[in-house]
């Protein structure tokens, strides 16, 4: 998190706000509810209280306006900048403006006023943007239901105002730390020469031309995917990435979702008792895709779109040295990379043995 320059904050805990006008996009009562709820979010983790005024000057003056609206910081039409707020202070300090050119909603479509208002009030209380993806104070909008603050947001606001002595809240889970020695992965796949590593609600993107892996919320890039994924693999012949979560699977072509999905994983020929896939990897030389679940794996023939006979087989027997279960797997030039807990096993597919074992996050330059 970041606090504003010189830690600007309100000198007292009893703040006032006033809604100067309303957006025609929503019912007046819904706007009032969204604003009140947004203040309540911050009040739940600090000793701050927010009282609404219906006239006069409040600490935080709230308005909807388009383009040039008299503060020398014009809005830019639909999308782009959604709203802005001034750091604590007299006069314009704390004031929060929403771009009327956006379509404001109380749902998940377009821009949810409650979420944007909560972010902006973070600024109005003295927080700057956080570089932690998934935090409310991250500078790009993304929709997610439930309590919007992450541990990072709470740490930031409590540095300024301290905690709320009367309430405990459950923050959103933190973004994973790439150099955490205990880091494990949910799924890994190649995607047109990039490597995508899924972990909780996030994914890292490793691109040969990017010096550092980039962490993003899955939902920000693919809103139609589930919150978390179990397994993924790339079939480069079909230019397709298949993503598994529970008993369903989705497909990507590049970064675009392929129509006709999700499908049930049982369409592949898996028995109904299989309820999730732990890891998946495609071997281009054989045209087979290996699907790992619990202590067994299946082999799927991509050319005939059928499950090979003689499966499932025990992972431990066919891939000696990697243990009984697998979290994620990728294949590169005759080598399979298996990930389990915080370990990465480099396994020679040709000589059928483990060549080396390193930390899982060595793939993230840790």
């Amino acid at each position, binding site marked *: 998190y970041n606090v504003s320059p010189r830690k600007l904050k309100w000198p007292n805990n009893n703040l006032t706000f006033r809604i100067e006008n309303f957006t025609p996009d929503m019912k007046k009562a819904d706007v009032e509810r969204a604003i009140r709820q947004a203040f309540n979010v911050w009040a739940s983790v600090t000793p701050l209280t927010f009282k609404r005024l219906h006239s006069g000057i409040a600490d935080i003056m709230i308005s909807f306006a388009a383009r040039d609206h008299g503060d020398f910081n014009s809005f830019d039409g639909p999308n*782009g*900048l959604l709203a802005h707020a001034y*750091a604590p202070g007299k006069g314009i300090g704390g004031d929060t403006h929403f771009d009327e050119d956006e379509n404001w909603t109380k749902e998940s479509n377009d821009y949810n006023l409650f979420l944007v208002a909560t972010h902006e009030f973070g600024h109005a209380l003295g927080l700057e943007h956080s570089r932690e993806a998934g935090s409310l104070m991250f500078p*790009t*909008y993304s929709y997610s239901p439930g309590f919007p603050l992450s541990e990072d947001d709470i740490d930031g606001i409590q540095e300024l105002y301290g905690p709320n002595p009367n309430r405990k809240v459950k923050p959103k889970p933190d973004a994973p730390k790439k150099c955490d020695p205990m880091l494990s992965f949910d799924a890994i796949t190649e995607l047109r020469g990039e490597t995508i590593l899924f972990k909780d609600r996030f994914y890292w993107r490793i691109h040969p031309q990017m*010096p550092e892996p980039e962490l993003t919320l899955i939902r920000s*890039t693919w809103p139609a995917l589930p919150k978390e994924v179990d397994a993924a693999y790339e079939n480069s012949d079909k230019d397709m990435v298949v993503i598994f979560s529970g008993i369903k699977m989705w497909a990507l072509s590049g970064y675009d979702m392929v129509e006709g999905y999700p499908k049930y994983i049982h369409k592949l020929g898996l028995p109904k008792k299989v309820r999730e896939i732990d890891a998946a990897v495609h071997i281009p030389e054989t045209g087979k895709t290996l699907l790992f679940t619990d202590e067994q794996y299946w082999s799927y023939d991509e050319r005939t779109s059928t499950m090979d006979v003689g499966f499932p087989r025990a992972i431990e027997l066919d891939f000696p040295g990697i243990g009984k279960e697998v979290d994620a797997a990728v294949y590169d030039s005759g080598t399979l990379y298996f990930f389990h807990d915080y370990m990465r096993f480099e396994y020679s597919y040709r000589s059928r043995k483990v060549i080396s074992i390193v930390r899982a996050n060595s793939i993230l330059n840790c």
Partner: protein
Amino acid sequence: VPIPGDETDERLQAEKYLSRFYNLPAGLLGARKSSDVLQTKLKEMQAFFNLKVTGKLDAETFDTMKLPRCGVPDVGE
């Protein structure tokens, strides 16, 4: 998707600088399109320092931001 520049940290620092000295209020960007608000403020700053006015956070602009300032009123306060 396009490869982002490796200037995330620099952008955050520039945002802080511009909010402190050029009254740039912190805001939230939409999911679909970037905004030219930061660009406008950068142009203002580059014009003030007689830099080449590009609206981009180039090395010269960023280096100027790092220089100590003296006797300049703090707009933010």
